[in-house]
């Protein structure tokens, strides 16, 4: 079923395209040697190039180019061996040169595609129009002084990848899934850290609505949305606003809007008439960027495994598609899982990571990167289950103890005496004591009240402080009651 919004006059389809700005993961800026670390003292990471001083010239940072090419390869996209940097001219206090250097006419990456997975398990392919490199601007701080604005140029000149999608997205869910998938791919590739709260990843969301089967209507652009959740909300809010206008007999005007997170609505930022004339032209300080196919091939050969490939590999290892999906969402989670599973039963490892381990993270409000238990120790716990030292129940008890202090599970077993009892003699003794103490129940059982078997199991385990091997306890009870 395709997504529609029911208006007063009938159903409306939503058409969405995203322009995602992803900060290139790189030690230095796109055209200067200045550093890029987040959260540094204002104006502490600024070279004279970034500050637009007279006579300063941009020099391309090769690592940023490689990162853009890796991302393009990860998006199954054409890599353009010839691309060019243009100047986008406009005045603003945090734009030191008075222009942004951006690949307007000839981007480094062309058409590609991304496959998204939706909550009902279905998949959909979203087309990528292009990926181009550009400089970020600085930051204006208007709240530091009653009459003055302050400028922080730390971000000025930082390399951004602008990834433009085709208008293939048809619902808030698809928009969210697409952004999450882009983020996932770039984090796997190590080309963008995807930290949306630090501004490393932002989306401009283009939204229009139409009657099913109709051509495109006017779109509006919702600028700078900085989370997957807000993208989904912005799509819906903007679509509903447009539907209301069309249904009231009005006309949607093309404009740039902002998403008001607190009120959950979009509001106008500037209309088409206020749009800048950016006077794009090729930057004469930078010759066209020409790449060797062999260099691109080399980057391709050394590309890290992508999430889709990894998920397929996990399914081949015996995991359910669901577990494979959940474990590959974050690269760190997948790495954690792989360390737990290395040399062990992959299915058991997946059950433990997605079960007890995820539940514990939720409960403790922790994450894999800040894990209370190391993958090595969790793996050792699985070994203790496999060699019969621990029953499933005991293992859970040991795991709880591990959450308190990340110790080797064997040490916890030893100290707490949690070792499972598999000694047939000890079990037989315990069973005999239980049967002797409950002679009346034994008689009822033998007279046909078979559901009392569970009672004997419970009493035996209780007598053994939970450490009896459950299979052996069952076996001995059956024989004795026989």
């Amino acid at each position, binding site marked *: 079923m395709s997504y529609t919004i029911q208006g007063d006059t009938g159903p409306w389809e939503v058409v969405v395209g995203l322009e995602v700005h992803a900060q290139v993961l790189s030690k230095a800026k796109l055209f200067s040697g200045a550093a890029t670390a987040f959260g540094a003292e204002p104006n502490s990471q600024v070279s*004279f190039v970034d*500050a*637009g*001083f*007279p*006579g*300063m*010239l*941009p*020099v*391309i940072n090769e690592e940023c180019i490689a990162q853009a090419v890796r991302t393009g390869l990860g998006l199954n996209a054409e890599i353009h061996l010839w691309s060019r940097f243009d*100047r986008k*001219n406009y*005045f*603003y*206090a945090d734009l*030191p*040169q*008075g*222009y942004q250097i951006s690949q307007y006419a000839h981007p480094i990456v062309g058409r590609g595609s991304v496959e998204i997975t939706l909550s009902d398990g279905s998949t959909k392919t979203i087309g990528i129009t292009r990926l181009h490199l550009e400089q970020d601007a600085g930051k204006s701080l208007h709240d530091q002084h009653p009459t003055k*604005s302050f*400028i922080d140029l730390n971000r000025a000149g930082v390399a951004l990848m602008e990834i433009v999608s085709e208008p293939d997205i048809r619902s808030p869910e698809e928009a969210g899934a697409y952004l999450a998938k882009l983020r996932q791919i770039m984090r796997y590739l190590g080309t963008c850290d995807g930290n949306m709260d630090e501004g490393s990843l932002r989306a401009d969301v283009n939204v229009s609505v139409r009657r099913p089967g109709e051509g495109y209507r006017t779109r509006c652009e919702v600028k700078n949305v900085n989370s997957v959740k807000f993208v989904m909300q912005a799509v819906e809010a903007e679509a509903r606003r447009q539907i209301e206008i069309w249904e009231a007999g009005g006309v949607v005007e093309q404009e740039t809007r902002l998403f008001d997170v607190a009120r959950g609505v979009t509001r106008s930022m500037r209309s088409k008439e206020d749009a800048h*004339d950016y*006077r*794009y*032209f090729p930057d*004469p*300080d*930078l*010759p066209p960027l020409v790449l060797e196919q062999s260099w691109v091939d080399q980057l391709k050969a050394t590309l890290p495994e992508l999430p889709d490939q990894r998920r397929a590999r996990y399914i081949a290892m015996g995991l359910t598609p669901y577990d494979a999906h959940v474990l590959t969402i974050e690269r760190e989670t997948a790495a954690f899982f792989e360390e737990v599973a290395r040399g062990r039963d992959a299915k058991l490892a997946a059950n433990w990571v997605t079960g007890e381990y995820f539940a514990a993270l939720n409960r403790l409000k922790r994450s894999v990167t800040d894990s209370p238990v190391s993958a090595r120790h969790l793996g050792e716990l699985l070994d203790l289950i496999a060699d019969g030292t621990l029953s499933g129940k005991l293992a859970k008890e040991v795991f709880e103890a591990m959450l308190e202090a990340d110790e080797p599970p064997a040490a916890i077993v030893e100290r707490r005496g949690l070792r499972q009892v598999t000694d047939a003699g000890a079990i037989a003794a315990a069973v005999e004591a239980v049967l002797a103490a409950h002679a009346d129940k034994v008689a009822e059982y033998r007279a046909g009240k078979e559901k009392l078997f569970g009672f004997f199991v419970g009493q035996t385990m209780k007598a053994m402080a939970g450490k009896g091997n459950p299979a052996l306890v069952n076996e001995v009870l059956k024989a004795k009651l026989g």
Partner: protein
Amino acid sequence: MRPTDLTLAQGLAALERREISALELADAFLAAIERLNPRLNAYITVTAEAAREAARASDARRARGEAGPLEGIPLGIKDLFCTEGVRTTAASRILGPFVPPYESTVTAQLKRDGAVFLGKLNMDEFAMGSSNLTSAYGPVENPWSRANDPARRLVPGGSSGGSAAAVAARLAMGATATDTGGSIRQPAAFCGIAGIKPTYGRCSRFGIVAFASSLDQAGPVARTVEDCAILLRSMAGHDPKDSTSARLPVPDFRAAVGRGVKGLRIGVPEEYRLPGMAPEIEALWEQGLAWLREAGAETVPISLPHTKYALPTYYVVAPAEASSNLARYDGVRFGLRESGADLKDLYERTRARGFGAEVRRRIMIGTYVLSAGYYDAYYLKAQKVRALIRRDFEQAWSRCDAIVTPATPTAAFAMDERQDDPVTMYLNDVFTVTANLAGLPGLAVPAGLDSQGLPLGLQVIGRAFDEETVFAVGGALERAAGFTAQPGIMA
């Protein structure tokens, strides 16, 4: 011979023979500046103390046997080159008290080779002009004057008017200059000295205040072709800080000056024979070609069919790039700031007060030609014509090894002439802009005097990165012309 009369080559020889010290040389030039600069206004900033200190350090290096190729040579620096710790104005009010915390690559290399800087030279504001009249620091006077009207003050040409006037009047042994449409060659010709705009990419643009990035190129002006060759060798070379600088070794240009022209084919472009061109200019051109034939070269007529479009093309491309390059002068981070009610007001007040009329005109032209709806008709069309102009030259190189033309359509004009119409002023560049559009080396050589006793120059254009042939032809012209005339105002 007085120290200020020495050519740069003679100065180097005198220093090597310990006939003079770098300090004595610097003092002689500083004294000349003190005496004549109040009239000529060639220097915006004179760094006398720093020059003496540098000269002493130079003498010490020479004494230790560590002399560089320009050890002790006193130079003037066009005020478009950023010089660490020394105010750099681009002859504009907008840079205000700006003191760069960095050094341009070209001046850093000159210092590395032992040169002593006397100060910063006047120029047209942001290198936009052909007269030095657009400087916010006042016009420069040409040290030459007309025989029949000696009191009438003439322009030195531009934009490197201060550089050319200072060298001609012996206020520097040589000077740095820059050339975007003729800004080295036209003032050199107006002041009776030599000047070369090398191939685009030969000298780093790092640290030079940008006018039009795809055309700007640094080069030297000096009294002789050989002096230019010596200076260019120090100024040139690949710089990783300029992505448009060429990764090529720097040849020994000085050795090429005396190479001779035997067997060279000299192209004579028909299209440079402008209707109404002064007969004196035409005669000098013919004379120059005759000298080269006498020296063993062959002259061949060639065609550069798109020449007539060069000037309009230049006046689209250069302002377009300038309008963007000058956006950074906004009063926010350095230089002049005029307070405003809000950001837009601050921009408008700062830029209105900071930029002169010619700079404002070019920013507006450039903004216009890049605007939506006009881009294709102007900027894009100009780029296409530029490619055709380049192709004209590429085709010509199959028929000749160098091209010789007049350097300028007239001799120096008076400060009070041609003020009313900017387009007439732009015609000064008619012979020189083609080399910038095609990125080729162009050398101006003083070759004769007009009937008023004013110097006239010839231009030699060569293949890309073949400055050696250009120097060889220029050297031959210089020897044949035997230009020994001197300006009226001179140290």
